[in-house]
């Protein structure tokens, strides 16, 4: 104990040093020791960020940590403190609005979290207190409480396993929600407490547990339990991770267990492991930030220019302080430097509208509201699971339009993951269901079609093996009538669908598994007799061994071991002479894309079994290295078996999977398949899903091509170099430029497996390893399709990360359905979950979840494309409209002695972004369809048009900036020349400076709105409503604002200014003219573009026609040609 704690100290890494002592059931261990209540946190899970009390300060603090908000706050404070041209309200109001909206949104989200927390915290648990069960809320569990958990319940906190309903003190749990492993894990109770199987017994236990302070490592736990008995010596037992039941895992196959709570609430390992999903930022956001910096530079330079010119201009004393406009004493007394600084700040404030606060709100709102369209899409609704798409984050909508790499899982994603028993082979004889008699099969072997026939006894042995060697359970239906026959189809449950398929397959051949009964497995054989087998041991499946076994005792007293597993793990363990005939079948089946398993058996003698039984039990009870010991024993047991046969299970390709992959590839995306499955199966799936085409040249980097020798690594390097050379020859030097255009006639596919990959990533020899890694990467990037098989979950993520970090940082998308895909889903820029059969892990951790793989097509090609175009336009438009908003104000400084006189009234300054111009762009960014959804979905090539963030590159940005600058110049100088004679009314009266500003502003609002109208390709009634409504609102507001003497205003600047402006014919003429001049270049450009596009489409359609004329098979070969012309045209 001491040494242990010293070790702890010396290790020095642990933050929480020391141990905690837990008294089981809060009972003091001895009378002499005073029972000191230790203070532990309660079992409340708090995932919420705020409480009612700290919401305001904490939320405000969080919000102002964002650089943009902070900037606006600073501007606001400057306005409050320094004498600035605009009142603090002008920037305070929008900021206030933004802050409030965000706070409401975050408050709502936090309320949801509170609700979810409450659901967890208020769930009821049973605690044993004074030999009685007390029902309590989960949050009330205290450290030291004895908790009872029943089958299929999740553990409410981290428990030390004391006793289970099983005699041997074993329970099975699945940690699927913790680490994604869905297989059952065995946990062991403390040996001395296993008998305490009732409430009374467990209440009699007096024990103290000493254990380390909570730490996040799921697989590490050290502690010991001291059990005190009144008449015996104290027993001390060490505790390890196998004694610890973690919160979040689920009890399986065990009726109930008792455990004592050691870590509760936020100290449980799950809570310590919980990290919110890391924030994914989209490429658009990065572009926005880059543009922001440009505008910030513009802003600062404008302010600097103005300040400098101001002081140059003021160097003339009669300009600085003419007799009619004298400074106050305070102004005169201020230091010049300070005055200059203040002036600079004032200019900043005056021009700060160039960086729009409202853009953030609008972008957020667009993303939030826009994401509803994905969930609402009925084409992504699946009738079978009765669910549509799910949006977990709205931040990445536009990223869907930018995907360059698609990483897809195979099982359950490309395929259905609904396994169907196809055929089997027994002793090399193939058994396949008769095609002509599909619906006629029954419990007899009649309708089966035999290709030769194995001995009857071998047949039966094989089928028995299928019926016994599994962990399938039968779930009784809810209705009590107990007729299993009624529910026989749907009631098999197992952790993997393969097992169900096999059991069902056996049933077709006449052997039906009827379930467990008192430790026996019941099997109905072909003669409708019920055979009983005593289940002695289950050697569970694990991914390392890739096989599982059962040991049963027949009614005749024979001991049998049945084993099934992957061919690679079974073949070495059976009689070598039996392999050959089966191997042929297995390989052929694998080629056909079936999942194959080999079945073997072994008869054990009584003595053998006894020995094994002892060893197994010993290993199970082992305190140290239990897993390793078990594995070693399994290894010994599963040898010298006899191969009986093999099974083939089909995993059907999902509907439209092939078309979807083809579309994605046509859209310029590279599709990689990452699967845990074996190479042959995966390869055939890839062919079936048209990832590889017949003319695709495959480059293989697998254990097969490596060979088994020790020179693996050298061989690998040779291969890498060879492939690299080959690819380089084929790809011309300029291929980088035409990155996505299919200029190559020869397509390459790469196949690599997990072990080879780890060789590349973790080479034994350090020298030149990184070099090979980069060569590998280059090979990968040049192949049109890559298949990675035999991947561990982490390797999947590794691959994604590797691609993600290559030059150019391509946008990656991962799609998968199982817990093993979670890591890659989290790693990729966009993670997509399939709401499949392997649970909800993937869907929950994804950014978007869709029911089927085929929905990816619409999600990317239509939704992604539209969202990207919408948001890109939104961003550009926002910068543009604020540039031409502020530029006249900047120019006006040259005519007002650089005095920071605002051109527009404060109300206009404030309302411009909030009211007058915000709604049309929001409506546009929600509803725009510049190309029909149908066209987008059916023509994947359109996706390439927006690749590489095309609409937010510097070129379009410059275009918009120039447009904004041009319009700003037109607005200002147009009105300036008009005001050369400020007599614009027919009664000779003159207009002042506020009329000047109002005319500019009117032209501005109309131009900016009409510019959007010009860009709108999809005019729904909403667009009409907001565009014309905004303009009408502006006019109405201006009349209203100028129509009243506002008591709260210091100056009535706008009083009747707008009304007088409207009465002047010249003003009208000028406004119309200036709007037209401003929009003129845009109209011209649109016309030219449309002419070009029409031209383009004409060419395309003519191509298409000729394409469709040619026969179907040649389409594939003609495609590169077709696409070449396409890319050539786009360069015109």
């Amino acid at each position, binding site marked *: 104990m001491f040494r242990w704690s010293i070790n702890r100290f010396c290790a020095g890494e642990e933050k929480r040093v020391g141990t905690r002592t837990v008294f089981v059931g809060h009972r003091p261990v001895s009378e002499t020791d005073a029972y000191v209540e230790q203070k532990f946190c309660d079992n409340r899970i708090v995932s919420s960020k705020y409480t009612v009390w700290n919401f305001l300060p904490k939320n405000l603090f969080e919000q102002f940590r964002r650089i943009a908000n902070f900037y606006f706050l600073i501007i606001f404070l400057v306005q409050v403190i320094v004498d600035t041209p605009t009142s603090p309200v002008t920037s305070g109001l929008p900021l206030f609005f933004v802050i409030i909206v965000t706070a409401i949104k975050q408050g709502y989200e936090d309320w949801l979290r509170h609700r979810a927390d409450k659901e967890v915290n208020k769930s009821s648990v049973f605690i044993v207190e004074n030999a009685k069960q007390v029902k309590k809320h989960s949050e009330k569990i205290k450290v030291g409480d004895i908790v009872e958990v029943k089958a299929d319940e999740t553990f409410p906190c981290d428990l030390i396993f004391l006793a289970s309903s099983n005699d041997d003190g074993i329970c099975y749990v699945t940690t699927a929600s913790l680490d994604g492993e869905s297989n059952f894990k065995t946990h062991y109770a403390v040996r001395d407490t296993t008998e305490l199987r009732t409430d009374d017994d467990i209440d009699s236990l007096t024990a103290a547990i000493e254990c380390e302070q909570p730490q996040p490592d799921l697989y590490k736990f050290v502690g010991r339990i001291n059990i005190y008995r009144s008449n015996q010596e104290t027993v001390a037992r060490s505790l390890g991770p196998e004694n610890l039941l973690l919160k979040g895992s689920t009890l399986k196959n065990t009726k109930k267990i008792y455990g004592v709570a050691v870590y509760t609430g936020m100290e449980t390992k799950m809570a310590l492991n919980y990290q919110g999903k890391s924030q994914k930022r989209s490429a658009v956001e990065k572009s926005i930030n880059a543009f922001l910096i440009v505008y910030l530079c513009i802003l600062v330079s404008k302010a600097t220019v103005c300040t400098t010119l101001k002081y140059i201009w003021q160097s003339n004393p009669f300009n600085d302080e003419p007799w009619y*406009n004298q400074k106050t004493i305070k102004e005169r007394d201020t230091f010049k430097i300070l005055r200059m600084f203040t002036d600079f700040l004032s200019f900043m404030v005056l021009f700060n509208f160039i960086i729009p606060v409202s853009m953030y709100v609008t972008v957020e709102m667009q993303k939030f509201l826009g994401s509803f369209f994905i969930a*609402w899409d009925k084409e992504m609704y699946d009738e079978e699971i*009765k669910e549509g798409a799910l949006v977990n984050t709205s931040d990445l909508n536009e990223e869907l339009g930018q995907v360059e790499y698609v990483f897809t899982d195979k099982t359950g994603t490309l395929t259905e993951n609904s396994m169907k028993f196809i055929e089997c082979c027994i002793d090399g004889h193939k058994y396949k269901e008769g095609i002509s008699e599909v619906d006629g099969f029954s419990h007899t072997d009649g309708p089966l079609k035999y290709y030769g026939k194995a001995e009857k006894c071998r047949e039966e042995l094989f089928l028995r093996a299928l019926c016994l060697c599994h962990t399938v359970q039968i779930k009784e239906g809810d209705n009590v009538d107990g007729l299993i026959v009624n529910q026989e189809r749907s009631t098999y449950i197992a952790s993997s669908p393969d097992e169900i398929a096999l059991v069902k397959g056996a049933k077709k051949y006449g052997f039906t598994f009827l379930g467990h009964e008192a430790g026996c497995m019941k099997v109905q054989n072909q003669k409708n007799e019920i055979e009983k087998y005593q289940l002695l041991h289950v050697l569970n499946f694990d991914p390392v061994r890739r096989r599982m076994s059962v040991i049963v005792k027949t009614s005749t007293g024979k001991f049998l071991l049945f084993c099934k597993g992957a061919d690679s793990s079974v073949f070495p363990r059976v009689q070598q002479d039996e392999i050959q005939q089966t191997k042929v079948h297995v390989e052929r089946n694998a080629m056909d894309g079936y999942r194959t398993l080999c079945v073997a058996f072994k008869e054990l003698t009584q003595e053998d079994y006894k020995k094994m039984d002892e060893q197994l039990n010993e290993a199970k009870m082992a305190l140290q290295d239990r897993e390793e010991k078990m594995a070693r024993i399994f290894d010994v047991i599963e040898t010298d078996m006899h191969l009986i046969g093999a099974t083939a299970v089909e995993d059907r390709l999902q509907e439209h999977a092939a078309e979807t992959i083809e579309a994605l590839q046509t859209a310029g995306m590279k599709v990689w398949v990452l699967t845990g499955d074996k190479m042959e199966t995966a390869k055939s799936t890839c062919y079936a899903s048209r990832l590889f085409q017949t003319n695709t040249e495959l480059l293989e980097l697998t254990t097969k091509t490596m060979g088994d020798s020790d020179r693996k690594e050298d061989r690998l390097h040779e291969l890498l170099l060879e492939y690299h050379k080959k690819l380089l020859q084929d790809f011309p030097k300029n291929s980088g430029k035409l990155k996505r255009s299919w200029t190559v006639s020869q397509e390459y596919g790469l196949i690599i497996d997990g072990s080879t990959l780890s060789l590349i990533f973790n080479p034994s020899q350090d020298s030149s390893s990184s070099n090979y890694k980069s060569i590998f990467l280059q090979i990968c990037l040049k192949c049109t399709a890559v298949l990675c098989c035999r991947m561990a979950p982490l390797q999947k993520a590794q691959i994604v990360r590797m691609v993600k970090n290559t030059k150019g940082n391509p946008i990656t998308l991962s799609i998968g359905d199982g817990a093993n895909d979670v890591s890659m889903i989290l790693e990729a820029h966009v993670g997509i979950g399939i709401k499949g059969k392997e649970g909800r892990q993937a869907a929950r951790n994804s950014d978007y979840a869709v029911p089927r793989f085929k929905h990816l097509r619409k999600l990317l090609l239509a939704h992604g494309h539209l969202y990207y175009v919408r948001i890109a336009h939104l961003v550009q438009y926002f910068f543009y409209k604020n540039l031409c908003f502020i530029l006249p104000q900047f120019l006006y400084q040259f005519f007002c002695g650089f005095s920071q006189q605002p051109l527009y009234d404060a109300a206009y300054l404030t309302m411009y972004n*909030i009211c007058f111009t915000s709604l049309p762009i929001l409506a546009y960014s929600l509803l725009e369809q510049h190309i029909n959804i149908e066209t987008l979905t059916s023509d994947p090539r359109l996706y390439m048009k927006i690749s590489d963030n095309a609409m937010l590159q510097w070129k379009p940005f410059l275009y918009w900036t120039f447009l904004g600058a041009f319009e700003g110049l037109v607005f200002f100088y147009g009105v300036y020349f008009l005001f050369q004679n400020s*007599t614009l009314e027919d009664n000779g009266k003159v207009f002042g*400076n506020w009329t000047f500003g109002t005319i500019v502003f009117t032209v501005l609002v109309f131009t900016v709105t009409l510019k959007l109208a010009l860009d709108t390709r*999809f005019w729904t009634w909403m667009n009409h409503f907001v565009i014309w409504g905004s303009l009408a609102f502006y006019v109405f507001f201006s009349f209203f604002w100028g129509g009243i003497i506002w008591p709260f205003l*210091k100056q009535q600047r706008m009083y*009747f200014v707008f009304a007088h402006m409207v009465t002047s014919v010249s003003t009208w003429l000028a406004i119309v003219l200036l709007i037209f001049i401003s929009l003129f270049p845009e109209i011209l450009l649109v016309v030219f573009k*449309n002419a070009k596009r029409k031209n383009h489409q004409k060419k395309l359609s003519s191509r298409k026609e000729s394409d469709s004329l040619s026969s179907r098979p040649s389409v594939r070969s003609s495609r590169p040609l077709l696409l070449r012309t396409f890319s050539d045209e786009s360069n015109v």
Partner: protein
Amino acid sequence: MAVNYNAKEEADGHPSGVGVPGGAGKSRKPDNTAFKQQRLPAWQPILTAGTVLPAFFIIGLIFIPIGIGIFVTSNNIREYEIDYTGTDSSSPCNKCLNVSWNSTPPCTCTINFTLDQPFETNVFMYYGLSNFYQNHRRYVKSRDDSQLNGDNNSLLHPSKECEPYSMSENKPIAPCGAIANSMFNDTLELFRIDNETRTPITLNKKGIAWWTDKNVKFRNPSGNTNNLTALFQGTTKPVNWPKPVYMLDSETDNNGFINEDFIVWMRTAALPTFRKLYRLIERKNNLQPTLQAGKYSLDITYNYPVHSFDGRKRMILSTISWMGGKNPFLGIAYITVGSICFFLGVVLLVIHHKYGNRNTSADIPN
């Protein structure tokens, strides 16, 4: 507004719980409404050469006549301008150049001029100032609109914005602020010289300010007396003014804050060179032009110093058309834009025609 929109969308029935963790009813089948499926009926205009080219022609055809109309109108406006600053040593007003605003007796000068053409319609007399920054921020804000609106409290407690022109001799200034303080105070009188006799021309000083300013925005302080002197009790005149605000004019409806010269001055100009309406010369009868061609003289009481800031003072006589004063810009701009439109229409038509033809015939990309 934006929030309203949001609410509207929610009213459309979104609460299917999407995007919201833990939301209820996830499994609901999406509604098949046009809005949710993004299939709202929509007008999908495409600006093509076919639609835009005629538009160019039409716009050109509309703009050119409008431009010509404006141009002609503008050219028909008679305008006569005299710079009487007196910077030129030969100018009669040269002696007054360095006058200060409080010099007594006031400096006067007379400038003779000849109108070559008669001014047929009503004539508007303006004074113009150059290099005078009425739009300087410190200047623009230096006023108290509630004082000018007749608020008695503000009358005695002028706004801080008026500094340093809010108090004088410990009394509040009415009207306060730099704008009021620097009110233009030259007196301009116009005489027609006919055979050596000077006939004064009636200058109408009412109707030069905006109606709303005169009647609503500017008001004298209220009280139970009509005597402005009493109403302005406790205030003092702006520093530069020779006399207090209640002695600006003899007529009560043009005195105090509602003096039209004052109101006109208080509407700050947009640019440093500006003109402001000074007087109206109404046409007496239909037989004679308002101002016949001939000799005139302008008598100036030169009070307003502009030389110190390099400013200029002008007197402008102008007739007015439906489009206001003389301004060639609009007409020229319209003609130019119209012509460009028309020209581009032609050019584009030709290009489009050729382009289109080549396009249909030559399908093969180069």
